[in-house]
């Protein structure tokens, strides 16, 4: 240890601090404080005005900083902006994820494999198509969709197709979302406009307790500017979406203030983290939580329903980057007891290997190919051949 350290001991450092004090006491403290506060207010107002002008009337309107400062806009306002964006491409997020039989009819009606899930399972599906171009694949899903969306979509899709296999994709990050009806209730930064039904576990059985009043992008277009229709939809969310909080979701004056948006975003992030932490702890999913119990029951029910209609189920578990094998731990007993064929991304592309992921947190194409090969291998196992 340095013997010379006494020269800057903490007590001496404090003394240095008090040396500055008399210089300030010469000025009247209250007046100085009031002036500082007033200048602070002036600068804050300047920020408000500058951001309003720069990010709406200049080239900065499309920049990343504008995007960042707009994250705190309410979910409703974001969706409204999206709906009113001119010339939206057909693959826009506005049209993705809706549980809409009309959209499902555009897919092959007698596929070899139907995939229910989200972008991860879609990527696996695309890799499957590349490996086996002759194989017909039907893909039903939504961006980041949880299992309740997959089950809701399956119930609608079931009469529309005949399939031999069905793959159910679930991610480790979406277990907590089975109590929601819209992803925006927890993840308000990016608008995911689609809604999905809410299920509950009643006496050991899955029961649909609420359906969204808005089920297509066209219905959303009609409702978003209609206060009565939109109000009814918000009432449904308030009653049945466990993560929904009006302050983060519905539009209000804070949308027009820089500071207001920052406050809303900060609070909504803390809300999402607190919500998630209640379900997923450092040692895995908390089995006593309603969401976890519903998730397990939904998986069991979906597999059972598929088997009832003579469809061979395959469960695909996707571990998100940096996560442990908690998802497998959560459903391992179900997979074993119900003899469900499954693929666990953890076994093929470990989530603690950064090289397995692209910057948007999806898997690299090599991983998707490996997943697709494993799915094909499961489909080709002798006991699953027709």
């Amino acid at each position, binding site marked *: *240890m340095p013997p010379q*350290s006494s020269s800057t001991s*903490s007590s001496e450092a404090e003394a240095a601090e008090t040396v*500055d004090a008399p210089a300030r006491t010469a000025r009247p403290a209250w007046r100085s404080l009031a002036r500082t506060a007033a200048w602070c207010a002036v600068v804050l107002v300047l920020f408000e005005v500058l951001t309003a002008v720069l990010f709406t009337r200049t080239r900065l309107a499309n920049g990343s900083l504008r995007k960042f400062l707009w994250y705190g806009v309410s979910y409703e306002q974001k969706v409204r902006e999206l709906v009113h964006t001119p010339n939206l491409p057909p693959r826009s997020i506005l049209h993705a994820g809706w549980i809409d039989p009309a959209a499902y009819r555009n897919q092959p009606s007698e596929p070899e494999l139907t995939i229910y899930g989200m972008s991860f399972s879609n990527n696996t599906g695309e890799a499957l198509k590349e490996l086996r171009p002759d194989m017909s694949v039907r893909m039903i899903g939504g961006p980041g969709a949880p299992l309740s969306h997959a089950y809701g979509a399956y119930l609608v899709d079931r009469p529309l197709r005949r399939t031999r296999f069905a793959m159910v994709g679930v991610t480790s990050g979406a277990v907590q979302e089975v109590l929601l009806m819209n992803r925006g209730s927890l993840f308000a930064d990016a608008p995911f406009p689609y809604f999905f039904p809410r299920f509950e576990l009643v006496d050991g059985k899955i029961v649909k307790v609420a359906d969204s009043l808005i089920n297509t992008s066209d219905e959303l277009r009609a409702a978003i500017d209609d206060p009565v229709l939109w109000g009814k939809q918000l009432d449904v969310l308030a009653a049945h979406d466990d993560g929904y909080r009006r302050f983060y979701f519905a539009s209000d004056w804070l949308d027009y203030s820089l500071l207001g948006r920052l406050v809303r*975003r900060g609070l909504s992030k*803390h809300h999402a983290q607190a919500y998630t932490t209640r379900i997923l702890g450092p040692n895995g999913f908390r089995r006593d939580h309603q969401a976890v119990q519903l998730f397990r029951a939904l998986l069991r029910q979906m597999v059972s329903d598929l088997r009832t209609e003579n469809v061979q189920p395959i469960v695909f578990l996707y571990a998100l980057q940096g996560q442990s094998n908690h998802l497998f731990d959560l459903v391992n007993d179900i997979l074993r007891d119900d003899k469900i064929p499954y693929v666990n991304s953890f076994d093929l592309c470990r989530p*603690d290997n950064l090289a397995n992921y692209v910057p948007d947190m999806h898997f690299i194409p090599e991983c998707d190919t490996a997943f697709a090969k494993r799915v094909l291998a499961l489909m080709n196992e002798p006991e699953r051949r027709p």
Partner: protein
Amino acid sequence: MLFNSLEFIVFLTVVYGLYLVLPHRAQNLMLLAASYVFYGWWDWRFLGLIFFTTSLDYWVSLKVAATQNERAKKAYLSISIVCNLGLLAAFKYFNFFVQSFVDMATKVGVQVDWVPLHIILPVGISFFTFQSVSYSIDVYRGHLQPPRRFVDFALFVAFFPQLVAGPIQRATTLMPQVVEPRKVELDQVTRGAFLILFGLFKKTVIADGLATGVNTVYNAATGVTGIDVVVATYLFVIQMYCDFSGYTDIARGVSKLMGFDLSKNFMTPFYAASPSEYWTRWHISLSSWVKDYVYMPLALRYLRKGDSKLNEYRPHVYAMVLMGLWHGAAWTYVLWGLYHGFMLVIWDAAKLPKALKRFRKRIPRPFWIGLYFHITAISLLLFRASSVGQIGHLFRTIGRGLSPQNLTMPTPPTATMLGLPVLLFLDFLAFRNSSDLFYRKWPDAARGALVAVLLVLVLMGWSNAPAEFIYFQF
């Protein structure tokens, strides 16, 4: 209860409201109750532990002060030291030492069956234990008298702003502030408020913003590149500084609101040009504690043994290893301590040859600052690694190449990217002025603008994923 949480805002508002209307004695009683609530928020079961050590040390100090018998004094002091350090060892080091023994036995062919005990580490145990031990030693040395009221002493140990992550306060500094009535002055309040704002900026905007990228690299088993490790390590240097000094700033700020003055823990540490200077700028309260209660007694002891270089240097290394172990029970911390100990020795040894001395004087200070910054960065790589094996892996990864195109770690959030230049600028001003009160010389308009900028940045950074303060685990 994190300082940057809504619960703490509510807690502080209630406590401060009561504080302003209560008389001195009632203030202390209320602050003690509040401190126990604050601590019990994590795990109420450990309130018993803190109450036990407090009662024991108070009893010991009364006994030490009452007796003139030197042997009896020593015996009482021993009770305090053994109990405090024994509890610390039981909670923090038991598994580590037994596991290390088992590993060693296995290596020499002796099979020992032992399952590590599931021991929960009480938050901040190292901080309040060291604070309590130093009190007992100071009373033994006659540097201070024990307070008349138990409540005052209990508040000294448990004072909530600094209870879980310091700065470690000496009884000679804090106790008089507890015992004597305090004044809440506007000047103190405004300085406190600014410290809180600046601390929140460091924590939420910088530290929490950098945490995601750093954790991604350090938690990844494979797939990271050499440039990832280097960038993550530099960012960890900044993260660590902002996390810990941010906590200290908030702790000092909250204390100032109530008229307390806690000692500083950081003084622009990355402008240190040598190891000895570094330890007068980084975690000052711990380094001065170790200097006074470990290094000095050791140095005296070795000097008595003989005037050799080995005897002069050994206390440096021993003190730094102890400082490493203070952080946690892991070989990475031992390595970190050894590394810093050897740096002190090397720097000292390099002073001796006259040619080297001249050479050192000719090279400008910024070079030494830059050099020592990199030395610090390497030490923090040792500190952040989860195992000695990972340290080797990280160095091998760096050795495989540093091509910038291979950078894969996530970019820090926008708020953090905007906040970093502000932090570096303010830190530079603090260094240039040798004081973090440089802004007080500014005109009102400039100060108002600074507060507004920090306020906007804190609101922007509020959406960064909140993480516990790193030093809570110690």
